[in-house]
């Protein structure tokens, strides 16, 4: 199945000394880590550890007060969502952010938006280059639909879909952008065991077949240990550990954060 024999490469994205606060709350303090090419990196930590804030910094929803983000060799004080998308960063959200009134197909097509070039007037007429382009993009979208096994819900408005499928459509939309870096915010939250297995398989397949680099936030430790190459642990906005699943599992600080420290 592997077309890209998986080879973890150089850092694709690096965050250095990122600090982010909201008023009196320090969401992130001095966080540095890197995401390497073709790897699956899990960001874990207890609730309120700053995981989602971290993703929001990476794709430009939040602008940190301190630190830099280096993506593809370019150093930035902050990302902007539009630039992040242009440069090949796609993401999904913790509470599913889909276009609820639109069909599955249209939702996924929005992921192709940046790649469509044809002239506005041809599009209105739905003719000529615009028609060819639309067909080409539709073909790509159909491939993704097949890949994620959501053929049956193509025409259904996503607001009507059950939660598990909405999560899958959201992943499809992100994949339609053909991203280099895919950020997944709790892709398996609220799923049953079977759905989690499906989602894990999809994530691994995306990583292997397309070579997409993936950074994900997940609470299910079983899943995290199974699918990720490296794990970053956050707690109260600080980085506790950073390493392979095995290294992190044995780290005393991590164990304390998750299980609590006995009071003497």
């Amino acid at each position: 199945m592997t077309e890209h024999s998986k080879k973890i490469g150089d850092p694709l994205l690096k965050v250095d000394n990122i600090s982010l606060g909201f008023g009196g709350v320090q969401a992130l303090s001095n966080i540095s880590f890197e995401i390497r090419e073709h790897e699956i990196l899990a960001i874990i930590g207890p609730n309120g550890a700053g995981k989602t804030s971290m993703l929001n910094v990476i794709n430009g929803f939040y602008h940190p007060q301190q630190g830099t983000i280096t993506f593809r060799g370019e150093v930035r004080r902050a990302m902007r969502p539009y630039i992040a998308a242009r440069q090949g960063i796609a993401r999904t959200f913790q509470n599913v952010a889909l276009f609820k009134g639109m069909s599955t197909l249209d939702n996924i097509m929005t992921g192709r938006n940046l790649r469509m070039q044809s002239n506005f007037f041809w599009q209105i007429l739905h003719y000529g280059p615009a028609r060819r382009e639309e067909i080409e993009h539709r073909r790509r979208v159909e491939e993704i639909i097949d890949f994620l096994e959501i053929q049956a819900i193509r025409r259904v408005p996503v607001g009507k879909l059950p939660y598990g499928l909405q999560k899958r459509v959201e992943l499809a939309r992100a994949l339609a952008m053909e991203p280099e870096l895919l950020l997944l915010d709790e892709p398996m939250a609220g799923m049953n065991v079977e759905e989690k297995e499906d989602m894990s398989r999809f994530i691994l397949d995306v990583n292997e077949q397309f070579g997409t680099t993936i950074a994900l936030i997940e609470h299910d430790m079983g899943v995290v240990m199974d699918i990720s190459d490296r794990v970053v642990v956050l707690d109260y906005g600080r980085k506790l550990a950073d390493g392979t699943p095995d290294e992190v599992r044995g780290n005393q600080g991590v164990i304390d954060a998750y299980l609590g420290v006995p009071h003497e």
Partner: protein
Amino acid sequence: MGDFTFFLETTISGLMTGVMYSLVALGFVLIFKASGIFNFAQGVMCLFAALTLVGLMEKFGLPAWLAIIATIGVMIVLAWLIERFVLQYMVSQSPIILFMATIGLAYVLEGVGDLMWGSDVKLLDIGLPQGASDWMLDNFNIYVEKLELVAGVVAAAMVAVLAVFFQKTRIGRALRAVADDHQAALSVGISLRTIWVIVWSVAGIVALVTGIMWGSKSGVQFSLSLIALKALPVLILGGFTSIPGAIVGGLIIGVGEKWAEIYVGSLVGGAIENWFAYVLALMFLLVRPQGLFGEKIIERV
């Protein structure tokens, strides 16, 4: 004249007034759909567009077609200015704050229009046919204003173009996306600012068309901005997010108020046209608050 002919004339005249209401409502729906902003300034935008058009024709002696193109340009620049100096600072503010901002905008626009072109009633004549349609009179013995027929055709064409624009184009898809979820739209690389400029431009052009139709009918004057108030019941009937809703709502109110005026008016002392629409809207709010075509908000629990 037979009773039935009279009834038909009333209905047609009501439909045509309704088309005008629909046009104003359309401008509201566009902006509401794409940004969740209830644009109080839509009525004033109609006035402003019409004033600019008349001004360009009178003061600079431009021919009608050139003046229309120039006014479209002005409306696009206006959209850009609104985004640059107002909306940009209002991202993710609550709807009521955005609404207040558009009230401010309405007064600014009104003032600027006044300042530039004066406040006297102006005649708008871009060569649209006036008077009764002889053809309708000869063949059906019904009195219909030519201008009203033109308005009907123009409105239909505009709705058709907008429908294609929203459903078939990349920008249309992006517009619908922005309307649904700002964050998600940003994450797929849609630029909110561009979308807002586009949608306010389109609303500006719709305002111009409305301004031309109303202006040709009853002159360009301050009261033009008050038709925005009539658009409110239209929106409540049709649903704030539905383009077909704006059209149907406008027609229902147009016809409804004419019928009410003629068949019920004498019983309650007349002037029913002034309040009929609002009472109808009130009844709708009680029975079907999302309007005829509005999306019913379903909360998953």
